[in-house]
């Protein structure tokens, strides 16, 4: 059964999503356990696949027994394996942590919520593992459709409008990606990534391949909320329900950064992207703009959740800028930052989910005196904040270290300055919240339990996953050296300097 791991990762959650949907009509209480079981098996398969890839190099899997250019084939290498482990672990942790919020918010529809949640995670894992460009488009559509629905369940007056805006901009992005594939298909005649890569070199200088590259990149950057195309993200993530935000925020944009890396490494091949086209400098400068604007916009926010969404926009600038530096340090920093940023964002949004579960309000004025009331949640929030700033023991520091040294080696001092500027702004952002939460007394009106002076901590099932994630911030930070050498270094193709 082990050689079936690549397909089991995607089909087991898919089958269990249909079972959950059936169960939501028959026996609602069984929905959560089946979802837990499904994501548990896919975590197990993802880790098993990562070890198989570590010793076999590349794992191939042909759907329906057909050879690659004719059928759909999976070609799983270390980058896929790493992404699969990240996506499945974050999804499983979030499923456990937000169980009480989901049951509380959607009393009679939580069966359907879990079906959409498992379909969303299946789409993301399918994107992370597929080796076929059109299959990636279909999975992109599943992920986006379930994300539209999950986001629209939030605050009744703002969430549907934010979700509809996300529908428009997301559809433009997906259609640009589809156009890019169409241009590749008309020039090469194939849809398999490895096959296109072997057919492209003779026609590198044709105009159609250039336009295909531009449209694919614009489509992916729209779905990734890269700075000029990020207008949908803040509203969508702020007004979405907490259980949905804390799974969409850490994963959706990071998987799209993976798609960009996969397109450059396996479809257009690095020497086309970096040497034939001279756009790596443009991308790095756009990334600097993204980092600076993301940090400045985060400064001007009154709501803690909106502030975190703008931090995501600037983190996307880290990854895109780091990747397009073009040297080994920058690229390994970008890939490591995908892992670190996923854990950081999950930790921060779970903490915000706990706060809003207890206090219902998320504006700064309501966070007064939270350290005495919710010490564990605020401790985890501070750990996430330190990692966002880049304080050594946490993982945020190490990926920033790789990015900055990559920027110096590549001579992109603008990018390095943007990184330092954003770290300083993060310091201001997080210490402002710590100062509000620590020094100012708590107002009586928003103490929901009415017990004077006592701790109103979130329930245990929400706290334990949060603590696990906060501890994993430090553990991943300490082992980031080994992660880079064993997992990330062999990913980078030889041609990179």
């Amino acid at each position, binding site marked *: 059964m082990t050689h079936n791991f690549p397909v089991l990762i995607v089909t087991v959650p898919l089958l269990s999503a249909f079972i959950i949907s059936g169960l939501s009509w028959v026996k609602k209480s069984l929905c959560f356990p089946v979802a837990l079981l499904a994501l548990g098996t896919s975590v197990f398969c993802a880790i098993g696949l990562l070890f198989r890839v570590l010793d076999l190099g590349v794992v191939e899997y042909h759907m329906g027994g057909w050879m690659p250019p004719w059928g759909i084939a999976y070609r799983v290498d270390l980058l896929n394996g790493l992404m699969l482990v990240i996506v499945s672990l974050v999804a499983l942790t979030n499923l456990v942590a937000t169980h009480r919020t989901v049951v509380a918010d959607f009393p009679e529809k939580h069966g359907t919520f879990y079906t959409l949640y498992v379909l969303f995670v299946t789409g993301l894992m399918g994107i992370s593992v597929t080796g076929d460009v*059109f299959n990636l488009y279909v999975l992109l559509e599943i992920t986006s*459709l379930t994300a*539209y629905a999950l986001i*629209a369940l939030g605050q009744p007056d703002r969430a*549907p409008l934010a979700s509809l805006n996300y*529908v*428009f901009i997301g559809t433009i992005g997906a*259609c640009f990606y*589809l156009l890019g594939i169409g241009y590749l298909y008309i020039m090469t005649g194939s849809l398999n990534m490895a096959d296109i890569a072997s057919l492209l070199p003779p026609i590198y200088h044709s105009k159609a391949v250039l336009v295909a590259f531009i449209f694919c990149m614009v489509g992916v950057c729209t779905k990734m909320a890269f700075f000029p195309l990020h207008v949908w993200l803040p509203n969508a993530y702020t007004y979405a329900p907490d259980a949905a935000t804390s799974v969409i925020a850490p994963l959706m944009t990071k998987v799209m950064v993976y798609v960009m890396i996969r397109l450059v490494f396996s479809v257009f091949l690095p020497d086309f992207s970096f040497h034939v086209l001279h756009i790596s400098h443009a991308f790095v400068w756009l990334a600097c703009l993204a980092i600076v604007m993301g940090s400045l916009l985060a400064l001007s926010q009154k709501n803690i959740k909106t502030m975190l969404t703008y931090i995501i926009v600037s983190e996307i600038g880290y990854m895109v800028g780091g990747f397009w530096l073009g040297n080994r340090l920058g690229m390994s920093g970008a890939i490591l930052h995908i892992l670190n940023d996923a854990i950081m964002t999950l930790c921060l949004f779970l903490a915000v989910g706990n706060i809003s579960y207890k206090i219902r309000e998320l504006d700064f004025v309501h966070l007064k005196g939270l350290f005495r009331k919710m010490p564990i949640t605020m401790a985890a929030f501070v750990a996430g904040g330190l990692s966002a700033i880049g304080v050594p023991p946490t993982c945020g520091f190490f990926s920033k270290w790789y990015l900055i040294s990559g920027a110096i080696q590549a001579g992109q001092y603008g990018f390095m300055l943007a990184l330092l500027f954003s770290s300083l702004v993060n310091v201001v952002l997080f210490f402002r919240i710590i100062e509000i939460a620590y020094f100012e007394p708590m107002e009586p009106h928003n103490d929901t339990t009415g017990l004077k002076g006592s701790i109103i901590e979130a329930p245990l099932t929400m706290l334990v996953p949060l603590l696990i994630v906060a501890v994993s911030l430090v553990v991943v930070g300490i082992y980031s050296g080994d992660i880079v050498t064993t997992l990330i270094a062999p990913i980078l193709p030889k041609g990179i300097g």
Partner: protein
Amino acid sequence: MDVLIHHIIGKYNYWLYTILMMIGLYAMIAKNNLIKKLVGMNIFQTAIILFYVSIACKKGATIPIIEEHGGSVAGHAIRVADYINPLPHVLMLTAIVVSVSTFGVALALAVKIYQKYKTLEEDEILMRLRDK
């Protein structure tokens, strides 16, 4: 000059699909009514489907269904130039189904927005948001 004419005559189909796509994209961005934006989105998606279908065309080829001449089809090889390229058709079945699903979900969202704001005009909704 004749190169340009050659380009236009040889590929008029691609020119017309681009015009359709531009109409759809413009409607999505510039229209004020939410449902009009949805119509623009659907026109944009059908234009891309038209592009893929025009890739599949072959002059002098028939529809991609193989007529069985008597029992033994394998007796003589099937000439490829007789049949249209079936692969883009398969891709476009998926794209049509995806566009209808997105259309359905977006209409559900529009109905939900109308329940709350009693209007579908973007500027009126933003005004009521600002009053809150």
